[in-house]
């Protein structure tokens, strides 16, 4: 997991590939977050606990940079979090078929 602050994003390369938008608390994105959060107590298929939900009107967008390596960027608030999860990537890709 790689958080990116406002002052460090300038040095990062841009991205351009297929993006999957996950607005609000749809079934797919929370599973990915739950899987990837370091130290998270939940198993990957467990429902979110109330305190784990997105904050207020916060939106989350997941961008699969590489489906085979499972590299996914999560955009939420003013942060970008990169995870590597081949299972989540595969689920998202298959959900579009």
């Amino acid at each position, binding site marked *: 997991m790689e958080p990116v602050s406002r002052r460090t994003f300038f040095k990062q390369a841009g991205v351009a590939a297929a993006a999957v*938008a996950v607005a609000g608390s749809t079934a797919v994105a929370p599973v990915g977050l739950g899987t990837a959060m370091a130290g998270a107590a939940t198993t990957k298929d467990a429902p979110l606990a109330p305190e784990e939900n997105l904050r207020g009107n916060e939106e989350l967008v997941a961008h699969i940079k590489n489906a085979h390596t499972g590299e996914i960027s999560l*955009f939420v608030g003013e942060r970008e979090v990169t995870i590597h999860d081949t299972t989540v990537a595969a689920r998202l890709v298959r959900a579009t078929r």
Partner: protein
Amino acid sequence: MSSHREAPEIAKDPVADSTDLYAFISPDNANTVTLIANYIPLEGPAAGPNFYEFGDDVLYEIHIDNDGDGDADVTYQFSFNSVNTIPTTFLYNVGPIESLDSSYWNRRQFYSVTRVSGWDRSEVLATNLACPPCNIGPLSTPNYPALASAAVHSLGNGRQVFAGQRAEAFFVDLGAIFDLGDLRPIANLHNTFGLPALQAAAGVNSTAQVNVHSIAIQVPITDLTKGNIAPKNPALAAASIGVWTTASRRKAHVRGDDGGRGFDTGPYVQVSRLGNPLFNEVLVPLSQKDGWNSQSPSGDSSYAQGVASPELAGLLNVLYPGAFPHLAAYTKPRADLEAILLTGIPAGVVSPTFSTFTGTTQADMLRLNLAIPAASSPNPFGVLGGDVAGFPNGRRVTDDVVTIELQAIAGATIPLVDPTYTKDGAIADVSDGVTGAGLSLLATFPYLGTPYSGYNVPA
């Protein structure tokens, strides 16, 4: 142009497209610096029904480097919010706008100012500051100067700010320059590619009678320096700062299903940058311009080759055969341009005490020596004209940066670093032939003139 539409992608995103940056010791307030960043190129004054405004989804910033590393030490951030106060009308205004809280004014914009110093230490200086309307005409904005004056806001501690429409002060013969460099004053010397010869002529100002949107902030010198000192010795590197502006958008945007804006999320991504005028426009290859816009000045060594060996200098020899024999024969890296644009000019080059040097880090920043007072009679040719308070020591709204940079690229500044070089005789005529004469400017902050109204322009 200075930076108007200078890169392919940002040219399609006008509200985030920086056009000009100015930084100078305030001529009427010697202990302060005025910083002006202009956005939205070439606003036609008759813009109804939707007049120009800043982007609510754009983060505008003016950065200051005060330790020479090309990274920001002080940043002023500006974020905007637009509102419709009369939801039922299709009009921008339904009567004369005679004050910034006019009930006749429908589409309004407000902004916040935040100062960031050090590494992420933020201080909100103000919120909910009103922008003036655009200048529409004698019925809608009958006393525009009064509206603009009311939109100059004090931020306390000697700071003041303005954000809104202003008259374009940049002047350039864009039509001629980008017609294969046929500078009208010396068009008779152009090779014309075998086409009929051109006649020498006066320049034509391509940016006449258009407007821009300006973000102007005036702050004490001590707001900008390391250790909050007021530099007294201009020869010291600590006396000079580097300035640049950026615009950033959130990394992800999802359009709304109902035709609304949708939403933005993720970190801000820089999409526009401007330090020295014409740097990205003239010295960076087209294929790299949008990439340059996304970078910090601290990484500009990767663009230094375009400065050390500028393409335009080589083109001058092709386009004007025989006019620049000394420039054509000069094969050394252009240390003069590297100093002017990338490191600042060290003390001893122009004079023992003049310097804009900030350090050896190559970074495109508009450098301003804070220990050199404003000139009582500014020369638009700045340092080239013997006025050390002008460009490339900062940039004033009257500086003729196009002619200065054209002449510098044509070799006018090589003798500063290489006394063996003799300037070509044609140098004195190298110009786009446009001057700032006739520009309507203000004597006080925010200095840029009243924007042209849509009723009067075009006439």
